[in-house]
């Protein structure tokens, strides 16, 4: 009896927490499927009418797909570059004999802790001198810089977990360092590499501050900035914003669901020896 009560209590609590964190998402999903009249209805209509009006409007009137494309390019490129660099740096820091490893790892961590506002000015200045304001690379560069510490830390801790004899075996079998990395280390540390890639992608996809600062032209703006600028001086297109927000969220949710297993394995690595 007591056990059953405990279980029920646990379930209720879990449900409550899940609802709490899902509520905003559910609300704008709900809103995005309403008609313009439903939105302002009093009392609010809970069940949407299931109209795609706002999606069509967001695409036609607010150029939503254009922002999606920009976000894809920037987040995709940032992820690719960051992971490529992280894999090399992580391997070197985890496996090669070198001095000052601790200091190097520590300084990476330090970089990731700078408040963004404190580096915003210099970053803007640098990009301006490159002529990279309002270009894709202008946003990719700071994203790579900011996410690299995370990528390196995750990949390095994964590489460190792999048994050293595997690497020795690869060397005996005729691999150089780079071959060992790509033929043995990375396939085995795939969950870690995936986790790192996903976290970097999510960061770049969601990032708002630098995107707002660097992309002042509409044609280069990413989703978060684009959506934020939907509102006009006298208009607040709630429906379109909700629809666009849904579009911005869905890819991430899909990615996480698809790679759920790998990510869980990735985040819990080191807890139990495989």
């Amino acid at each position: 009896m007591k056990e059953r009560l405990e279980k029920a209590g646990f379930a209720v609590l879990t449900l409550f927490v899940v609802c709490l964190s899902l509520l905003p998402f559910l609300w704008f999903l709900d809103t995005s499927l309403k008609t313009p009249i439903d939105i302002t209805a009093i009392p609010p209509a809970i069940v949407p009418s299931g109209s795609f009006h706002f999606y069509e409007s967001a695409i036609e009137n607010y150029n939503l797909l254009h922002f999606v494309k920009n976000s894809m390019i920037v987040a995709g490129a940032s992820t690719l570059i960051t992971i490529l660099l992280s894999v090399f740096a992580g391997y070197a820091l985890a496996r090669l004999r070198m001095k000052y490893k601790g200091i190097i790892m520590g300084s990476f961590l330090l970089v990731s802790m700078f408040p963004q506002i404190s580096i915003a000015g210099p970053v803007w200045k640098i990009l301006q001198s490159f002529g990279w304001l309002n270009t894709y690379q202008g946003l990719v560069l700071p994203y790579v810089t900011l996410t690299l510490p995370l990528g390196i830390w995750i990949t390095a801790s994964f590489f460190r977990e792999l048994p050293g004899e595997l690497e020795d075996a690869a060397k005996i079998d005729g691999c150089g360092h780079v071959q060992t990395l790509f033929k043995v280390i990375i396939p085995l540390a795939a969950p870690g590499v995936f986790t790192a890639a996903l976290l970097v992608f999510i960061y770049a996809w969601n990032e708002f501050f630098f995107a707002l600062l660097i992309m002042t032209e509409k044609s280069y703006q990413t989703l978060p900035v684009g959506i934020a600028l939907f509102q006009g001086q006298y208009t607040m297109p709630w429906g379109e914003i909700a629809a666009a927000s849904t579009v911005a969220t869905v890819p991430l949710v899909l990615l996480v669901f698809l790679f759920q297993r790998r990510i869980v394995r990735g985040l819990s690595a080191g807890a139990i020896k495989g």
Partner: protein
Amino acid sequence: MVGLKIENLTKTFGGRKVIDHVSFEVYEGEFCILLGPSGCGKSTVLRLIAGLERQDGGGVYIGDREVSGLTPKERDIAMVFQSYALYPHLNVYENIAFPLKIRKMSRREIEKKVQAAAGLLGIDTMLRRKPKELSGGQRQRVAIGRAIVREPRLFLFDEPLSNLDAKLRSSMRVELAGLHKKLGITTIYVTHDQIEAMTLGQKIVVIDRGVIQQIGTPREVYDKPANLFTASFIGMPSINLIEGRLVKKGEEILFRSDDLEIPVARRDFERYVGGDVTSGIRPESLGPGEGPLAGRLEHIEHLGSETILYVKSGNMRITAKAGADFGGKVGEDISLSVNTMDIHFFLDGKRLDVARGAENDRGARTV
């Protein structure tokens, strides 16, 4: 012809000398064992030969080529690891094919060689399986397959059998010996297991604390241990070591320890008379019967084919061997006969009369 030559190899880890001027030679096609307790540096020697570690001094020669500065890839060697070190993401076929693929061999040739190696090891029915679906013994075979498929100049084994259970270990031992006979490739085999060393090795290099203690055939290291370390490390149950002194009684030389007196059957030991020596008597040289050693039976182990006796004699604990039909009981008094020809003497830890032939040893047998 020389298969492998190690010259004055030295290696220091963090200020501690783990390998100290190690030199030895292995003939082409020979099966050489590096034997020693864990932490003695034998695995480090192997890794230095493989090129996985860089030596601080000395040289490594494979055939007549110096390889001291070369990478493992350039040394043309193959290695089998204690943990097998199979690539978990590749299946058996891909694991065995891996070194050939890295060397950019053609697909057909790889196929042919992998099939041949797998057939030789009896794993040709499981080529599509992943390592985690295999048993320990099968994994070990795959690891060996990956090593032999390349037909290297040198085989290195790092305690390959120590993760297997006892039964499998002895059958793998026989297979390894057969494999070596078939392939005839120079082999260096690291182990702390003296049975593996005695049964597989043509040459045994005994190492302790980074220093070579003795090099010899299995018979030599067992019958003529060069020092106290080798004597006590090799042999199961281990050798009885008794400290005492050589004295002269009339014409006869005696080994005396407290009230124990054993005649020494070597006239050339005259010059050591008066010296403090340690005598080493293997349990099989001691047996129930009339003799100088007497004591009380403390413990008896019946092993089926033989019986191990633990005897307390004065302050000493002595181990002896008896036949399977031994009928004594714990607590009884027993006297032990000694085969005096099989007693080893050590002065300052080193074997006396190492170099001498056996001509002086003929004469006395059992007393």
